């Protein structure tokens, strides 16, 4: 595959959810892409639409959700128009996903080795004879110590970090082009979190795999990602290479998010909260969904047709009055 063609390209995506109390405009004009070997971070607070973007890209949007506009191209497949059979083929082979709370994602009454073996056999990379050896190899690939013994362990006998390693082993067993990690370390201890993130980064590099890290932790995204996509209330408001984004955030929300995150040095006076909350996505919304919380707001911000502006190569900002 051509290096220039992104593994995943989401273009102008709109997603709505029908609920009893009205239509939630969960995503609007969301565009982003991931290249081969690249790790991007989708960062935002809860309710910003990070996970919905990822689920839609996998073609596993909830029944109540509806794509009203846009296109998703995943490894050459038009996800929104492909038949379910092709999508199933794609999931696993092209793209895999890991979630938070790995322990609940594993079957509690089967040994972890067997569960890995199931996945390996389903994808044809192992047969009845060599499944045990292949599963142990997979455990080894995610740096699980003593894989022979751990192969026969049940999920409850393993720590949360160990379970997440097993989920990673399963996700990567069929060598996907793209890994989507949805808050993979939430609920894990800091040292475990660091070890898991190191592992994901290392494996991605080794396999030249594209990775999407969904997180609320700006610090973690900065630490591991090449590029960061910032979301707020269903909009992508800014995206840029990590270093550039941190050096010169252009969207007021990004800047505020950085100021709100404690970062080691400095005192409490250096961090600031962001006034207001997310707007009600069921209501009639202004073109800029941050305008109600923004200090730089002026009448021009209410003009329709707000689009992302490329302020420098690869740095897109969706704001009429960028910093």
């Amino acid at each position, binding site marked *: 595959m051509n290096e220039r063609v992104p593994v995943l390209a989401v273009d102008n995506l709109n997603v709505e959810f029908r609920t009893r109390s009205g239509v939630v405009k969960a995503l609007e004009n969301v565009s982003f892409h991931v290249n081969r070997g690249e790790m991007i971070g989708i960062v935002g607070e809860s309710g910003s639409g990070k996970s919905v973007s990822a689920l839609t890209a996998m073609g596993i949007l909830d029944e109540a959700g509806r794509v009203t506009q846009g296109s998703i191209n995943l490894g050459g497949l038009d996800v929104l128009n492909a038949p379910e059979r092709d999508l199933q083929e794609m999931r696993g082979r092209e793209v895999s996903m890991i979630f938070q709370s790995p322990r609940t994602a594993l079957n509690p009454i089967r040994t972890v080795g067997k569960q890995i073996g199931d996945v390996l056999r389903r994808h044809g990379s192992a047969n009845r004879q060599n499944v045990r050896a292949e599963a142990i190899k997979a455990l080894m690939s995610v740096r699980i*110590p003593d894989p022979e013994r751990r192969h026969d362990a049940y999920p409850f006998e393993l720590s949360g970090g160990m379970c997440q390693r097993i989920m990673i082993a399963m996700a990567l067993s069929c060598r996907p082009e793209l890994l989507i990690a949805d808050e993979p370390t939430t609920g894990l201890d800091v040292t475990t979190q660091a070890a898991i993130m190191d592992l994901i980064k290392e494996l991605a590099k080794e396999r030249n795999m594209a990775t999407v890290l969904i997180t609320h932790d700006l610090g973690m995204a900065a630490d591991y990602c090449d590029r960061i996509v910032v979301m707020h209330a269903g909009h992508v408001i800014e995206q840029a290479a990590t270093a550039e984004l941190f050096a010169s955030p252009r969207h007021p929300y990004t800047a505020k998010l950085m100021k709100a995150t404690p970062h080691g040095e400095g005192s409490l006076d250096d961090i600031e909260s962001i006034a207001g909350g997310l707007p009600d996505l069921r209501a009639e919304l202004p073109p800029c969904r941050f305008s109600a919380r923004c200090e730089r707001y002026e009448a021009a911000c209410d003009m329709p047709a707000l689009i992302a502006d490329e302020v420098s190569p690869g740095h897109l900002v969706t704001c009429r009055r960028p910093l």
Partner: protein
Amino acid sequence: MSVLLEVESLKKHYVLSGQGPSDNPLVRWVRQRLTSAEDHTPVLHAVDGVSFEINAGESLGLVGESGCGKSTLVGMLARLSDKSEGRISFAGRDIGEVPSKVFHAEPERTDIQIVFQDPHESLNPRFTSFDTIAEPLKRLKGITDKAELTKMVEAVAEQVDLPKMLLSRFPHQLSGGQKARVNIARAVAVEPKLLILDEPTSALDVSVQAVILKLLVRLKNDLGMSYLFVSHDLNVVRLLCDRVIVMYLGQIVESGPAEEIFTRPAHPYTKALISAIPNAASAGNERVRLTGDPKSPIDPDPNACRFHGRCPMGEDKCSRAAPPQISVTADHYAVCHFAQPS
């Protein structure tokens, strides 16, 4: 500075009777006849000899990972559970001797309060914000007059910037930040001397975290409370605490002034913790990484360092002798064979 809380060799051991040899006397008797093996019921050392103190008006940070005994320790300090051994003395009185079941009637009940981690789970779904904040005032301060109670609840709500109109709402009608405020209001309503904050911001979005942290600092100054700030978010601990203690598998491994712990950690575990903080500034730096999982807290070897096996600098002697407590500076110590006085 006067000492508010003094904890000495505090221990909490759980006898795991269900997991060892049966505690049925008949089964025991038969076992003893059949085998020569000595009966031993495994014991979980949740908190194993912890000593520290909190001064009046001080913020002490308690850092450690899940399973290190933080929560058990907090439960004992707040007198929600009973200790196995040791002393908890609060403002000069040994409150550890009072069984937790009857502690609600002690005068110190008012003085020690907790703000829990999950702002939603810690509110009774059938209580309005008003009911929740009013309850400690009724039970502990004995205020029954409705008008007076309303006045006091409204005053507390104002103190924590909780709009008056939210007082009649149920928890499910409040946002995360508002629920956090209700929890804080309940805890400070009786003006405690020691407020234990159990990960008070970990369930909140970044955008509200800062307001809540600032609110906590302001309340501390206004009401002259001491804080025991339990957290795994070291960035937050660093912002709020004067002193920090680091726990690992039921024991304190390092203790000292916050700034010193963060800039010159002496214990390898503390070093690993600090270098694990995700941070834009540290991207690409060399890191201390831990391998494997912590050892089991069940029947730990008394003659070995509990961190041995995960420790990047572990040596043979670590598995043969418990590490000594070494003073790094006057008020900074680490429990490690390799710690050096500076």
